């Protein structure tokens, strides 16, 4: 039977936004409840501090813009990782290896900058290529050995992490007593990304071209996915692999290419972040979480390249909000907890969306009941 639900189908975008906002609001409410448990007296004050964030400087435009700039720069890696995951996801691939590709990006950008003293442009380029290679490796296993990209991705994450630990832990890159990489600004000034509108952002020295590049990447992804034959192929493969094969699309090539591009974006994320010199790499015992947060951000952003930017800014805004908490009453990690809850709820974005999107949901449930009732298990769902 043909049930037309045009009224609903016409506004899937609205629903996606609604679902994402719902997640965010629920996350904040649950965060507030946790604050209430920790310190009921100052919970409201704490919540306001997190939400108000750098706007508490609203009286001083200079400082306000400075902190806004910092938030923008710090959002860059998580947004780009989310874009990488989104891109692969559209082609039906779950690139959990983005974390590893990001790690390889850190390794290459820092090594080329600190050990080899390259100019920032070549550092970024090298990191992008290395990320692409790491992604392509994952794609190669998937295409030719039929290894699930999640398994290969997780394996490559750890290999990437230990490579990074081993290579960066020499004296040319790392202050071994602090086990932290040197400041690029001090060691190799040509390796620092050029600034971008630093004057507007209260002379924030970290405000770099990373921000416009991120926006550019999101727009390019949007265009590639929706307007090009390559995007058409990728999405067709993502929606229905068999139909893509029937149409003569080269599945193996597309898998490798998609993961390579996804890896390149992850590598770019790492290089843009670390080459602002805002962050140093420390010997780590676990894979950087950026690639994993990216998964949540991509979903919170409704799997839309521009929505992902908004979601990334929001997540980073709340994370940084933790710094404004009064440490006498609260541990600043409460903000991380809230983000964790929001991220957890992100898993429900598609769930909320499917509720809103499917007026037939009820009948499907009923259908299931029917099968149980007549004592059968569905051999084939229609």
């Amino acid at each position, binding site marked *: *039977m043909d049930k037309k639900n*045009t009224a609903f189908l016409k506004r899937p975008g609205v629903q996606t936004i609604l679902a994402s906002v719902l997640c965010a609001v629920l996350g904040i409410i649950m965060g507030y409840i946790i604050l209430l448990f920790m310190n009921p007296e100052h919970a409201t004050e704490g919540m306001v501090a997190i939400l108000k964030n750098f706007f508490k400087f609203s009286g001083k435009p200079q400082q306000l813009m400075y902190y806004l700039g910092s938030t923008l720069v710090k959002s860059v890696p998580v947004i780009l990782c989310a874009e990488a995951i989104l891109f692969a996801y559209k082609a039906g691939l779950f690139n959990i290896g983005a974390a590893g590709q990001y790690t390889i990006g850190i390794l290459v950008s820092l090594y080329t900058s600190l050990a080899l003293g390259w100019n920032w442009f070549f550092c970024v380029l090298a990191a992008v290529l290395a990320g692409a290679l790491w992604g392509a490796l994952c794609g190669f296993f998937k295409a030719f050995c039929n290894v699930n990209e999640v398994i290969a991705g997780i394996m490559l994450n750890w290999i990437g992490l230990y490579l990074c630990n081993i290579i960066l832990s020499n004296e040319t890159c790392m202050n071994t007593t602090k086990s932290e990489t040197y400041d690029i600004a001090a060691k190799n000034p040509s390796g620092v990304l050029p600034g971008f509108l630093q004057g507007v952002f209260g002379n924030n020295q970290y405000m770099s071209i990373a921000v416009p590049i991120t926006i550019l990447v999101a727009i390019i992804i949007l265009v590639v996915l929706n307007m090009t034959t390559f995007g058409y192929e990728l999405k067709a493969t993502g929606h229905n692999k068999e*139909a893509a094969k029937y*149409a*003569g699309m080269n599945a193996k090539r597309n898998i490798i290419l998609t993961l390579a591009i996804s890896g390149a974006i992850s590598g770019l994320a790492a290089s843009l972040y670390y080459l602002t010199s805002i962050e140093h790499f420390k010997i780590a015992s676990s894979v950087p979480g950026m690639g994993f947060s990216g998964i949540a951000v991509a979903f919170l952003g409704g799997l839309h390249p521009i929505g992902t930017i908004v979601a990334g800014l929001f997540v980073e805004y709340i994370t940084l909000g933790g710094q404004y908490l009064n440490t006498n009453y609260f541990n600043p990690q409460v903000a991380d907890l809230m983000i964790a809850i929001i991220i957890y709820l992100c898993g429900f974005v598609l769930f909320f969306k499917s509720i809103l999107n499917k007026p037939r949901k009820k009948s499907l449930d009923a259908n299931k009941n029917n099968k149980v009732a007549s004592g059968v298990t569905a051999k084939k769902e229609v």
Partner: protein
Amino acid sequence: MPMANKDLGRCFRMDDYVIEMLHITKEFPGIIANDDITLQLKRGEIHALLGENGAGKSTLMSVLFGLYTPEKGIIKKDGKEVHIKNPNDATELGIGMVHQHFMLVDIFSVLDNIILGAEPSKFGFLTKADAIKKVLDLSNKYNLKVDPDALIEDITVGMQQRVEILKMLYRDNNILIFDEPTAVLTPQEIDELMKIMKNLAAEGKSILFITHKLNEIMEVADRCTILRRGKYIGTVDVATSSKEELSSMMVGRDVKFAVDKAPAKPGKEVLKVENVCVKSKIHQNDSVHNVSFNVREGEIVCIAGIDGNGQTEFIGALTGLDDISSGKVSFCGEDITHKSIRYKNTHGMSHVPEDRHKHGLVLDYSLEENMILQRYFEPEFSNHGFIKKKTMREYSDRLTKAFDVRSGEGATTIVRSMSGGNQQKAIIAREMDREHKLLVAVQPTRGLDVGAIEYIHEEIVKQRDAGCAILLVSLELDEVMNLSDRILVMYEGEIVGEVDPKTTTLQELGLYMSGAKRDNRKEA
């Protein structure tokens, strides 16, 4: 006519209705699926429910089964009004349904499947002995031959269906709904099912029989209710009606059953298949073994056979979806055995796939995007890697108009929301419009109603007359007999015979299809 062996001994008291669905109206956003429909089922009758795809048959049955609540109308059981809110209520009222796709657990035995959900137990332990006895009694009483210990995956489709029927009987259901039960059966199995249904009716069970096959209605049904586009058209006594009357009531106009076609004028050889073998994915043997034949310009060659005899695997290998393990395929004199799907697509092979959802369409793409599925990269539709959206739209609009593909929102309709018939038409439109010398059509009319079937058959004949070579694979014997110029019968992966549709009979075809007869063909 099959009328002769009809059980005319049965008669019904007037107004002895077991189930009455009165003035049922069910709306969905934007569409009235059932508009004031009345269906009255007498005790012990076989009542056919006839209608095109999307006429509202399934919705009506879903209302009866408690899956939907109607906006208007009431349901009466034995003259008393009942409220069926969910399938459990329906089961309690003794309503059972055999679904088109069987709901069986493959790795369970027949007995386990029958008792599943209604297992007899004592202190939490199964007491199968009673169940076996009941099942065997039922199976003897209604002549439903099954082996209770066999696994579902090992038995034939016909037997699986008998298991489904036993499942309903085991639950003491008196009102049995058969949803297109013959779609998957061989002619012999269909005959048997017809006997079983008559038996059941004779024992006092009431049967609702959903179908679009008119022959079957003429053979077994007592009365027939016809729906068209959600509206009630009428209920007729089958004995005093005719196929022509039923079909014109269903479609709203007269329908031709025989395909009008001139004798074929075969030209040059287009496709030549030599000793093709395909390895099975499940067992050691070949699923396709030493298949050789040819197809020429301007003829329709049909591969007939019971489902699962290697047709799917052969077509997969021919079109490139699967690998050929040995043998040779030539296309217009060129060896294309190991060419890619893209190569075959762009060098004149069109393919209407067997499974439109798995292969034929990207369901979450819009209609226009599906229309260019194999052509998006051609200069006509792309420019420096960008898709020409305007051309795509115009192309899609032209095809949908030419092939009368109906959709809610035109070119931008998401294909998933279209009806099966229109999805199929969209594929046919796409494949026929592409430049091609060979059309491979696998079950092109599967699940379609007579109106749409007539249309697709006409199009295929038109293609043939325009000089296209056509390789048809069909499980429908009517289609095979009507449409083809030559018939090849496939049995267990081999071509066991070639017959001329003008001189053969359904019985002869049936013998070939069941492996009882085979020619010693010379290898081509």
